[in-house]
């Protein structure tokens, strides 16, 4: 056996931390760079991957359903079924297959995103006024041109609203993903419950709420920028 270990001085907590007060700003700022910021970045990464991948899949499904009416029914049934599975149960089901990995989390998050995205994109496409499509056809546009030049731009508001709800929902679900991977704001919340520490879970929880509001605001802004005609119509 080797000699006795050197035990370093770990310091002592501030009065606020020692009393486990509701929120200690001093501790929060001191641990911003090594705890909160990395967790926030991980949270954003997990959310972005899920929403982007979910959007691509839902978009392809919606376009296919729009062109091939028969596909709408099974696609809607499948995505709504996935949407109803409780997140924790889905994580537990996936862990034996894909392990405690980012992949497990992303499969579950993407599965949740499909229903809302598919529904809103397809609804948007179907609600484009028939007259507009007819006019485009009369001008000699091909089916594909009609999709990209008429139907998609006109369904943007519905699509953006679907993205908004999905993004906010995903940010919330990523917090539960901490049961599978030690990552994101959920990990800080989970660990702060282990040996109760208010500042950590209130801090991480508040960051998740702020992140959701910020993402929602950004998408509203993006929607406005992408549909300038909507504003001019309102102004008229």
């Amino acid at each position, binding site marked *: 056996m080797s000699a006795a270990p050197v035990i370093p001085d770990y310091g002592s907590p501030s009065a606020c931390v020692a009393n486990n007060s509701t929120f200690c700003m001093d501790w929060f700022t001191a641990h911003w760079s090594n705890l909160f910021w990395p967790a926030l970045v991980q949270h954003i990464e997990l959310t972005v991957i899920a929403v982007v*991948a979910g959007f*691509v899949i839902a978009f392809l499904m919606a376009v296919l359903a729009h062109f091939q009416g028969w596909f709408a029914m099974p696609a809607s049934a499948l995505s709504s079924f996935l949407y109803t599975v409780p997140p924790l149960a889905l994580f537990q089901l996936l862990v034996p297959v894909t392990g405690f990995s980012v992949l497990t989390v992303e499969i579950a998050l993407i599965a949740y995103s499909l229903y809302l995205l598919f529904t809103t994109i397809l609804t948007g496409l179907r609600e484009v006024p028939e007259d507009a499509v007819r006019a485009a056809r009369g001008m000699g546009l091909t089916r594909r041109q009609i999709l990209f030049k008429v139907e998609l731009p006109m369904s943007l508001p519905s699509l953006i609203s679907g993205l908004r709800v999905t993004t906010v929902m995903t940010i919330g679900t990523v917090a539960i993903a901490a049961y599978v991977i030690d990552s994101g704001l959920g990990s800080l919340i989970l660990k702060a419950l282990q040996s109760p520490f208010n500042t950590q879970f209130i801090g991480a929880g508040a960051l998740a709420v702020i992140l959701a509001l910020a993402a929602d605001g950004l998408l509203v802004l993006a929607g406005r920028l992408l549909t300038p005609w909507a504003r001019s119509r309102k102004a008229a």
Partner: protein
Amino acid sequence: MANAAPATGRRPLRRPPARRSSRALAGCLALVSLAALSGCSAVSETTGKPTVVIGAKEFTEQWIIGELYKQALTHAGYNVELKSNIGSTTVIDGALTSGQIDLYPEYTGVILQVLARSRTVPHSAAATFQQAKAYEETRGLTMLPPTPFQNRDAIAVKPAFAKKHGLRTISDLKKAGHVVFAEYPDNMEGALGYRDMVKAYGLHNTEVKTLNIGLQYSALDHGQVEAADVFTTDPQLARGGYTLLDDTKGYYGFQNVAPVVRKGVQEKQGPEFARTLNKVDALLTDQAVREMNRAVDTVRLAPSEVAAKFLKANDIS
């Protein structure tokens, strides 16, 4: 290995006025999945050896030991990934046997009680380790040497109470007359449970109060209970405000920590790998671990900070 993003995410749409944002998103996606692939570790690739994945269970002491292993191995030039806070013994054992992790720190007695389901408790720390190792060897796993420290159940009383009744061992509690005893809700029955303990020690005059982990110290302080089941590495014990009674019958068994490693990992990583872990484990005395637990649970440093300070003080990194 997990590829985090399906390749379809690369090109959402070609035709609409090619917007930068979708490109940026796709780029971001690729970057993020790369980061996920590499386990987000910026270790200088020197050895060319495969990444070692360390697991840790779902409480403070394990987060710290996981960080100690990770940082010491990283410093020694290995590629390491830490999956912390995985879950309970059975969950993390499943992750190990299915190859999702390569090693994790486990308590020798727990291996026998929880995984091997043995009915009896060995009578020494060495025998406990040997039996645990022998059991793990039958499952394609092996164990490295254990730590000096143990995190076992123990019975704590206030020093004044011990003095008044002349208590040194658990059986001495008989001298104290009617004793109110604090126990965790999930440790009433079973191999280390309250029921068998009072039977083993012949304590016929006890009354039990179930209290969640962490509440028993203030209950002792306020005289709501006179004795309590505690863990020997609880940071509250570091202050010296409690007396632990000797477990003369070895009822609570032995709980040293040793890395449980999948067979084949050491061969791939070379002999220095086990040496690095052994060097860390040899430093983990009761006092050292108690202080680290206190640094996380009371001072509220992050486990990674605490591990870094400890390794630095002991010239490991």
